[in-house]
Each structure stands twice: as structure tokens, then as C-alpha cells.
């Protein structure tokens, strides 16, 4: 080391070298550097030394050359490989044997390194041993080196070459190829090793007993099993046998020895070193001498203790396993690999699963397959067919048909098992997973539903992280906010919330996070992508995540911009309404349910009550008592959504007891969020009074007209009345005559008196009709059958028809024609028309006929009276309904005029149609009344005041 120090100039190299000395081989780089430095130093030294030597020993050259020649001959001739390596561990000299070994000329080998010649691994090994040589050691190696692809074993001796100063400058080595020798040695070693291993590995205690000498040798196992001094003699052996077995074993042995068998075996308990007994199986081969006497026995004792214990354990385990298998809530099975569809074992649970006994499945080779649902069978067969490797579990799911037809889902865990060298078979467990499948399907459905709901929802839905970031958002939300989904998922809700609402929202969210609430709802503003403000109703629910993951929120966002706008509009409209209502001259009420909720100042004025008083009342309470029920029913029905008249007139009683008529218009509206009825009320008391007056005038006029008509009818009526009177007279006279002649018996008298009574009533009826017709009684509105009224009029007219030889052909609508009417007035109209027609026919020859028809057309009853008279002129037609217009020689000319007023008062029309040839037709219509509303319609009649 000291010699090379001056060569190294850098202090860094010095440090490295020092370290290299300390670390030795552990730092290869340092070693290489060191070696290089050493080589250089040696070369320098060698050159200096050689020059000196050449100068000093020129005379000795000759001697040296001779020696060298001799050495070279030896060097070249030796069969061992000879070589010299320089400090670089490169071959600098080598002999022909080495060239032969590699099959290469010397120049190809010189300068090469070990790695280049023997490969990396061997080279490294060699280099290690070389290092020791360079350290001054003589190294003997036996080394295996690959040469030309074949392993050669070399015995190598390497010695260091030193210069005069004692420095090692190279090494000289001799390597003998001992491959062949080494192979033999190795075989022997292996054999010995195998023997040792077998003898040590065997579980048996082996002994070799010289019977004659009573001496034995034993293998280590024997000692290990029993005692170090074991089986030193027969006596010891016999004593070591369990007392209970001893006699038996000894006898058995003696007997065998005495016989000629070469083999003996016995099981017995044998004492162990720890004092316990092992269960052993002893077999011995007996060697006999020429006389057959046993002289030697070589045997082995097997410790069966573990075996027996294992057997017992196995039995127990088997029993446990069977119990387990047969009580598992699953079916276990075994089936051959080549026919997995025909199980060879099925646990009894199969009965519970499929309703079949194992036996019936064993006995029917196709039954099992047939129970598998066809849809699943092919898939399962494929799974079976792709033979998995042994021990690799495989899971199949398929459906089977239960004996009752029900389908069960089976999950089949199976594995290919091979025991010993026996055939592989499939072993498996079948679980009934029908419920699980159902749950799974339900779950899938529920998930699908959730997903669909989420995606298809009409409201925006988002999953939001606890930091406010959108984790998931549905399409609607994106639409509402105007963001693309990708964009939205990069944002936090705080980013798109109106600045004024962020704090509120975050505060609410924190309340959720604190756990005191699970949901909150708020109305807030979002800023849409285009910058517009959007009002939304946000419902936010906390979702706690499992295993401490940070919680999330489900946010439901409803666009309520429209609603907000509507609310504003509503408030505005409300204000307008108030202003209007408060200034309106018409009375206005709003009622809801039974209570008046609002009344305007005009309503106060009309009713005389203060608003507060009105609002304490049920809405019908101010109505005239006759109308209360009607108004109550209509108001309630209206709120139920039923169709009731929206406009009608009704009287009320004011606070000071006056009756006032109101024209009421009702409409539905929503008041304070609930349906209500808005009623406007116009005070029509004055109009009512005027109408009343007019109506009275008209009634008087109609009465006059009836009196006049009666005058025209008088002759006919007299005849009408004469008929029953004549009949009565005749009956009475006839009876008297019979009494005088004594030919009247009681039954005849009874019949006649009945007939007389009938005729009396008939006369009375005529009188009643006349009186009714002319009595100026107030209008009496009733639902009546128009057909009946027409018939009454016709019977009134009959005498005239007879007298004037006019036929009345009556053609009535088949069904009743309910009309709300004053029957007398309508009768009067019909009678007027009949009289007119009769007049028109006059003395005309030919078809003296009046056609009287009733029909229904579009909810109206139509009465038509056609005559075959002379018709009317255009001038007449224009004036025919004027009062006091007449073409007759007598009469006042008020008949048609009054008739028209009457019909119009009844809500109908009266008109005339001239026929093309001759005669005219008068028609009038009346609205058909709903029978069920008789009461209300009557009220309607009264309110219309006519």
C-alpha cells in the first residue's frame, strides 16, 4: 500500500483508497480502482527491476535460457492446464493443454479475463479466489467451470508470483480437469447421503439383532423414539413392552423362532423414553442358520400412535362432516366429471329444495338435467364441460323446477376433487338463492328506478359533496341552470348561488352537518350560466356515508321562477282587485265554505251591515227566507264544482228589515289559496218593482183577454154543460118511469145512480174549468206537462170546433213535456191560437182542419197550430202581433199580442209561419224544465218577476 501512495496524486483518491481498505470487497468499484493502481505500480517496479537484473546478471543469461527451455518443454507437455495471470488478472501465458481444452489458439486466449472465458458467474468466483492469491495466499480450489457448454470440474492450485521486493505481481496456476473423477466421487457421496437421508427420514426404528450374541444395532430414529440405550438386549426389549402385551408378544416371537417362518410381526405397546407407551408395529425378517435356528433378526418398528390417533380423528371428523353436510341449509352433492348431470351423492336436503328424494334422482339419470330450466341448461352444460383444474372452485347459478312447478334459483359452488389416485369428481354445494335473487332483482329495479327517477325527474337533482361540489347532476338540473353536465360537475353550489343567498344556504348546510336535522328546504336564487337570476326551491337532504366517508347531500332543485313571477303578479292583481272592489258601486262578496270572507263597501251599503258583521255570517243568512235554502245549496254546490246557474236574482232582507232584490253573479275564484265564490250583487229593487207593476198590468190584460175568450166560448160551453145535464135528466126520468111501472130493480138503480153521479161531476168540472179560466188569480208557476195543458185547451175548444165544423187533429209528443209555466196562461195562448185558426178557416169549404202538434227540439218544447184557412196578407203578417190590430169584425185585437207577451215571459218565443199554399202556422216554444229542480226553477220564475 505504501508503495503506491506516491502514484496517487489526488487527496480524494487517497480517501477512496483508505476507505477501500476499510471496506474491502464490499465496494467493487473501489477494489477495481485499487487493483488498477496496484497493477500500474507492479509494472513500474517490474520494469525497474528487470533492467537492473539484466545489467547485473548478463553472464547468468545463458544458464537461465537453458532452464527456461526445460521449463518450457515441461510447460508445453503437461496434460494439466498451466497459466500465468498478470496483475490485471489477465492471462499472460498459458500452455497447449489449455488451448486444447478451449480448442482455441493461445493468442485468442491471452489477454482474456475469466469472465470472457468461463462466463460471468464462474468468472466472478474465480476472481474472488484470485484476490486471495494476490493477497499472498496459496489457494487450492475445486471448481466447476463451464467450458464450451459443458461443465468441467477442475482441481486448481494457484500461487502468487513475487518480485524481489516480495510484492505479488502475478499468479501462476495449474488446473487439472478432474471432471471424471469428480463424477464418481459425487455418485458415492450422493449414495451415502441418500442412505443417510433415508435412514434418518424413515419413520421407523430399525434394528439389527444378533440373536445368538443378544446384541443389536439401531438407527437414530430408534433412539429418538425410545431410549438411547434401547434394545441393548432382549431383556431390555421385553421389559419395555407394555405389561399387558408382553406375554403375548414374547409367546408370538418364541413361536415364530421355533417355526420356520422368515417373517414375524406384531402390534404392541412399547415404552417410550418419557415413560409413556407408543403403539408400535414391529416386523422382523428372521435369518436362520443351516439348522434353521434363528440367528439374526433385522426389523423395523413403526410408531402407530399418531396413525391411530389420526384414524380416530378421521372417523370423528367424518362423522362431524356428515352431520354437517346433512344438516347444512344447503344441498351437497358429488357427481362424476364425465357426467355432472347425474349426481352420485346428494344430501337429503335436496328433498327440501326440489321435493325429490336423492334416491329418485340416482335412479333416473335424466331427471336432474330435466329439472334445470331449459334456458339455463345449455350455459350450465358449457360450464361443466370446460373442465376446470382440480381444486379450483367454480360457481354457477341456474334455476331448477321444484316438484310443484315452482322455480328456485340455485347457486352451485363446486370444485373438482381427486382423492388419491381415484377418478376426479365434482363436489359441490347448492344454495337456494331464490330470495336473494328476488331481492337482487328488486334492488336492481329499485336502483334502476332511482337512476331513472334521478335522470328523468322533472326537477333538478344533484348529489353534492360536503364541500359543495356537484358530484352528480341530472339533465333537468343542467337544463335549469343552463350548464353542461361537465361544466357543472366542476363547480360548487356556492359558485352558482346568488351572492345574497350563499350564506343562508351554507348555514343551513352546516346545520345538517351538525346532525340536528336531516333535511332543509329553502327558496333561493341561482345564477344561471347566462347570468340570469333564477328562483328555485331547494330541498336538501343529508346522506351519511358509511365508514367515516365525508357525508354528501342530495339536493332537489325546483325552478320556481314562474311561481315567483306569478306570486308577484298575484300580489299586483290582488291590489288591483282591492282597489276595484272597494270603489265598485256593485256589491261584492267572497265566501268560502259557509262563511263570508270579504265584502266591499257597496255590499255594506246594500245590506246595511258592516263588513265585520257580514263576515260573521253564513253567506245565505241575509237572503229572503224563501230563498235561503236555494242560495245555500247553490253556493255549496258551486264550491264542489257542480254546474249551477251563475246568474240569478234573489231578494235579501237588509239590516233594517227591508226586502231588496239583487241581481247576483257568481264566479269561482281562489281566495287565500282555497276555492271560493265571488258574488257581485246589483241592487235591482227598483227595476223589480217596475217589472212587478208591468207584470200586474199584463196579468190584468191577460185576464181581460180570457174573459173575452170565454165570451166567444160561451155558446159552446153551454152545450158542453147541457150534455151532462141532459144525461142526468134522462137517467132520472127513465128511472121514475120504471119505478112507476115497477120494473126497476136495485142493481139497475145502482148502475144508474153511478152514471148520474159521474155526469154531475162532469158538469162540475166544466164549471170549475170556466171559473179557473176567468179567475184573475195570481200567476202560479209550476212544472207542468205541456201536453196536458194543450189537451185542456183543446177540450175547451171542442164545442167551438163542433159548432164551426172544424176538426182538430192533435199530435202530441209521446213523452211528457215538463215546462215551468203558469198553466192557465199557456192554455189561454193555445186557446187563442185555436180560435184564430178556426176564424181563419171561417166558412171555407174543403179541409176544415186544425193541426195541433207538440214536439221537442233542442231542449225546447214546441207547440204548433196550423190552419187550412185563407192565410194572411203581408201587411197583416207584419202587424199581426200588434195589440188592438184585428182583421175580425169583432174582438179587441189583443189576443195574439197578449199571447206573445205570455210566451216571452215564460222564456219562450211565439212566431208565425205562412204556408206556401194556404193557411198559416203559429208556433211557440218553451224551455224544457228539469223536473228535479222544480223548486229552484219556481224560484227562478219568481225572480224573473214575470
Amino acid at each position, binding site marked *: 500500500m505504501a508503495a503506491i501512495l506516491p502514484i496517487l496524486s489526488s487527496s480524494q483518491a487517497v480517501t477512496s483508497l483508505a476507505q477501500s481498505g476499510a471496506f474491502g470487497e464490499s465496494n467493487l468499484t473501489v477494489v477495481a480502482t485499487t487493483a488498477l493502481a496496484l497493477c500500474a505500480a507492479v509494472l513500474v517496479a517490474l520494469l525497474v527491476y528487470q533492467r537492473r537484473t539484466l545489467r547485473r546478471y548478463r553472464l547468468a543469461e545463458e544458464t537461465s535460457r537453458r532452464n527456461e527451455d526445460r521449463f518450457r518443454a515441461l510447460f508445453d507437455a503437461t496434460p494439466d492446464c498451466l497459466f500465468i495471470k498478470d496483475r490485471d488478472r489477465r492471462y499472460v501465458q498459458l500452455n497447449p493443454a489449455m488451448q486444447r481444452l478451449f480448442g482455441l489458439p493461445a493468442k485468442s486466449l491471452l489477454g482474456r479475463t475469466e469472465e470472457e472465458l468461463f462466463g460471468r458467474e464462474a468468472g466472478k468466483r474465480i476472481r474472488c479466489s484470485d484476490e486471495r492469491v494476490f493477497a499472498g495466499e496459496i489457494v487450492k480450489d475445486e471448481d466447476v467451470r463451464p467450458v464450451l457448454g459443458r461443465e468441467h470440474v477442475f482441481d486448481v492450485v494457484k500461487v502468487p508470483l513475487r518480485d524481489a521486493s516480495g510484492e505479488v505481481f502475478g499468479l501462476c496456476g495449474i488446473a487439472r480437469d478432474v471432471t471424471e473423477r469428480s463424477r464418481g466421487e459425487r455418485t458415492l457421496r450422493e449414495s451415502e447421503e441418500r442412505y443417510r437421508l433415508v435412514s434418518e427420514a424413515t419413520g421407523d426404528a430399525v434394528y439389527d439383532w444378533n440373536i445368538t450374541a443378544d446384541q443389536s444395532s439401531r438407527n437414530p430414529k430408534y433412539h429418538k423414539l425410545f431410549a438411547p440405550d434401547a434394545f441393548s438386549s432382549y431383556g431390555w426389549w421385553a421389559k419395555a413392552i407394555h405389561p399387558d402385551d408382553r406375554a403375548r408378544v414374547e409367546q408370538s416371537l418364541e413361536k415364530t423362532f421355533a417355526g420356520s417362518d422368515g417373517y414375524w410381526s406384531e402390534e404392541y405397546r412399547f415404552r417410550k423414553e418419557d415413560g409413556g407407551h407408543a403403539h408400535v408395529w414391529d416386523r422382523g425378517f428372521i435369518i436362520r442358520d443351516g439348522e434353521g435356528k434363528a440367528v439374526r433378526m433385522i426389523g423395523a418398528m413403526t410408531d402407530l400412535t399418531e396413525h391411530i390417533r389420526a384414524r380416530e380423528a378421521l372417523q370423528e371428523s367424518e362423522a362431524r362432516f356428515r352431520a354437517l353436510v346433512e344438516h347444512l341449509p344447503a344441498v351437497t352433492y358429488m357427481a362424476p366429471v364425465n357426467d355432472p348431470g347425474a349426481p352420485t351423492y346428494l344430501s337429503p336436503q335436496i328433498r327440501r329444495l326440489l321435493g325429490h328424494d336423492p334416491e329418485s334422482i340416482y335412479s333416473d339419470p335424466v331427471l336432474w338435467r330435466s329439472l334445470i330450466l331449459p334456458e339455463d341448461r345449455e350455459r350450465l352444460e358449457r360450464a361443466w364441460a370446460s373442465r376446470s383444474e382440480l381444486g379450483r372452485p367454480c360457481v354457477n347459478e341456474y334455476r331448477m323446477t321444484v316438484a310443484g312447478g315452482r322455480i328456485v334459483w340455485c347457486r352451485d359452488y363446486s370444485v373438482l376433487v381427486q382423492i388419491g389416485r381415484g377418478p376426479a369428481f365434482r363436489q359441490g354445494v347448492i344454495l337456494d338463492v331464490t330470495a336473494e335473487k328476488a331481492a337482487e332483482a328488486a334492488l336492481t329495479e329499485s336502483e334502476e328506478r332511482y337512476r331513472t327517477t334521478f335522470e328523468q325527474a322533472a326537477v333538478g337533482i344533484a348529489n353534492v359533496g360536503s364541500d359543495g361540489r356537484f358530484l352528480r347532476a341530472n339533465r333537468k338540473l343542467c337544463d335549469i341552470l343552463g350548464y353542461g353536465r361537465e361544466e357543472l360537475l366542476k363547480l360548487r353550489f356556492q359558485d352558482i348561488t346568488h351572492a345574497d343567498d350563499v350564506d343562508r344556504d351554507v348555514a343551513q348546510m352546516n346545520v345538517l352537518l351538525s346532525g340536528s336535522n336531516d333535511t332543509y328546504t329553502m327558496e333561493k336564487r341561482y345564477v344561471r350560466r347566462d347570468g340570469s337570476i333564477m328562483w328555485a326551491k331547494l330541498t336538501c337532504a343529508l346522506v351519511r356515508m358509511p365508514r367515516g366517508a365525508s357525508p354528501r347531500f342530495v339536493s332537489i332543485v325546483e325552478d320556481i321562477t314562474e311561481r315567483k313571477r306569478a306570486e308577484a303578479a298575484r300580489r299586483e292583481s290582488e291590489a288591483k282587485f282591492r282597489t276595484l272592489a272597494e270603489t265598485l258601486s256593485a256589491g261584492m262578496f267572497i265566501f268560502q265554505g259557509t262563511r263570508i270572507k270579504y265584502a266591499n263597501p257597496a255590499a255594506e251599503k246594500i245590506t246595511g251591515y258592516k263588513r265585520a258583521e257580514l263576515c260573521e255570517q253564513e253567506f245565505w243568512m241575509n237572503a229572503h227566507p224563501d230563498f235561503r235554502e236555494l242560495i245555500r245549496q247553490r253556493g255549496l254546490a258551486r264550491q264542489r264544482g257542480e254546474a249551477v246557474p251563475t246568474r240569478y236574482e234573489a231578494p235579501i232582507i237588509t239590516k233594517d228589515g227591508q226586502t231588496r232584490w239583487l241581481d247576483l253573479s257568481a264566479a269561482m275564484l281562489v281566495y287565500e289559496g282555497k276555492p271560493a265564490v265571488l258574488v257581485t250583487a246589483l241592487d235591482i229593487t227598483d227595476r223589480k218593482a217596475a217589472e212587478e207593476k208591468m207584470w200586474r198590468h199584463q196579468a190584468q190584460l191577460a185576464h181581460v183577454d180570457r174573459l173575452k175568450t170565454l165570451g166567444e166560448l160561451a155558446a159552446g160551453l153551454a*152545450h158542453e154543460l*147541457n150534455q151532462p145535464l141532459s*144525461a142526468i*135528466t*134522462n137517467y132520472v126520468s127513465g*128511472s121514475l118511469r120504471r119505478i112507476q*111501472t115497477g120494473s126497476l130493480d136495485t142493481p139497475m138503480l145502482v148502475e144508474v145512480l153511478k*152514471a148520474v153521479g159521474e155526469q154531475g161531476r*162532469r158538469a162540475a168540472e166544466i164549471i170549475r174549468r170556466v171559473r179557473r179560466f176567468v179567475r184573475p188569480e195570481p200567476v202560479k208557476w209550476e212544472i207542468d206537462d205541456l201536453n196536458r195543458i194543450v189537451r185542456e185547451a183543446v177540450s175547451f175548444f171542442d164545442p167551438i170546433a163542433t159548432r164551426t165544423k172544424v176538426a182538430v187533429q192533435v199530435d202530441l209528443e209521446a213523452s211528457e213535456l215538463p215546462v215551468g209555466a203558469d198553466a192557465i196562461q199557456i192554455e189561454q195562448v193555445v186557446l187563442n191560437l185555436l180560435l184564430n185558426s178556426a176564424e181563419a178557416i171561417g166558412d171555407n169549404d174543403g179541409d176544415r182542419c186544425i193541426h195541433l202538434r207538440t214536439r221537442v227540439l233542442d231542449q225546447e218544447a214546441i207547440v204548433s197550430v196550423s190552419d187550412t184557412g185563407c192565410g194572411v196578407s203581408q201587411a197583416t203578417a207584419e202587424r199581426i202581433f200588434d195589440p188592438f190590430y184585428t182583421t175580425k169584425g169583432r174582438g179587441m185585437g189583443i189576443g195574439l199580442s197578449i199571447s206573445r207577451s205570455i210566451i216571452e215571459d215564460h222564456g219562450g218565443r211565439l212566431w208565425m209561419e205562412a204556408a206556401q199554399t194556404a193557411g198559416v202556422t203559429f208556433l211557440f216554444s218553451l224551455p224544457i224544465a228539469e223536473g228535479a229542480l222544480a223548486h229552484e226553477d219556481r224560484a227562478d220564475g219568481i225572480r224573473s218577476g214575470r
Partner: protein
Amino acid sequence: MKTEPTVFVVDDDEAVRDSLRWLIQSVGLDVALFGSAQEFLDAYDASVPGCLVLDVRMPGLSGLDLQERLNQEQINIPVIIVTGHGDVPMAVRAMKAGAAEFIEKPFSDQVLLDQIQAAIARDRTARKAQSDKAYIGERISRLTAREHEVMDLVVAGHSSRQIAARLGVNPKTIEAHRSHIMEKMEADGVAHLVKLVLTATQRQQSAEGNSGNFPE
């Protein structure tokens, strides 16, 4: 052939009809009821004697219409017209048409029954006259044309000589004709012959002249 008289009642009012039957039957007369003139016409059997009680005011054919129809068809049944309140023109028209009586309702039962009895009696007489006339007519038809001519002159009061002169034949021939005539006519004398001829001819005059009464 029915010889008992029947009272035919035509009235559209059933009660009146029925009460009339009750009344008329009380005096032992047969009654037949009809609701209308047409019903009566359809059922009428001229061989049945009796009279007709007719309400003047009926739909369809009225009483007066029926009366006219009967005249047109030379049905000579006595007619009693009943009316609720007859006015003068109506009564005149009925009488002209040959109504036996015109009674106004309400009427006394006795008046009606008397009228009915009278009418029946008239019908009986008329029917007898009718059958006489038929008999005379039959005898007249046996005469030759010359005998008929001679008889007309005899009845006119001419003597045989005057007749012979008028006809330009021998009076003895006339005498012979007269003798045949008397024989064929079964007449006792000229006076009887005159009566027979008058009976036959006057009847025809009465039907043509719309005279109210039959000559007795």
C-alpha cells in the same frame, strides 16, 4: 122481418146516448145506439120500422148532414132532431129537410117520448101507404098503353063519349076499355079509381116537393 119499431139514437156523447136508451127503454121501446151518423148509415136496415133521434152537433157528419143524406137516399124514416141550443136558422133548415120534431135540450122526458111515439106512428102509416102505392102501381102496370091513356082521361072527369071523340074511336070501344080498366084496377067505380090513381101519383109529388106532411 122485424115489425116491432126501434128507436135509433145517434149521439157522439156516450153519456147522453146511454141516458137516452135508459129513458126510451123505460116505455118498452127497442133502442139502437150509434156514436156517429156514419155508423148509423153503415148499419141502417130500411126494413126495420121506427124513428131516428139525432143530435144536431156532432163531429164528422152532423145531425143536419145526416138528415140530408137520408133524403138524398130516399130513406123516409121520421127524424127527431135534438139540439143543445137551437138557433132559428138551424131549426128552419131542419124542418125544411123534413124533420119530424126539433127538441131543445134539456127537454122534458114526456115531450121526447111523445114525439118518439108520434114519429113511430107516422112511420107505420107511411110504411102502409108505401105498400098501398106499390100495390096500385103494380095494378096500373097491368094496363095497356091505350087503357092507361083512357084511364087518365076517365080520372080527369071525361065521359066515355068525350073520350071516344077525343081519341077518334067508337064510344063502345071506350066502354070496353073502361070495363077492362075497372077490372084490372080492381076499382069499384070511377070514384075509387080516381082515389087509387091519386094515391099513386100524389105520393110521388110529395117526395119531389119536400112537403112536410103526408096526405092522409
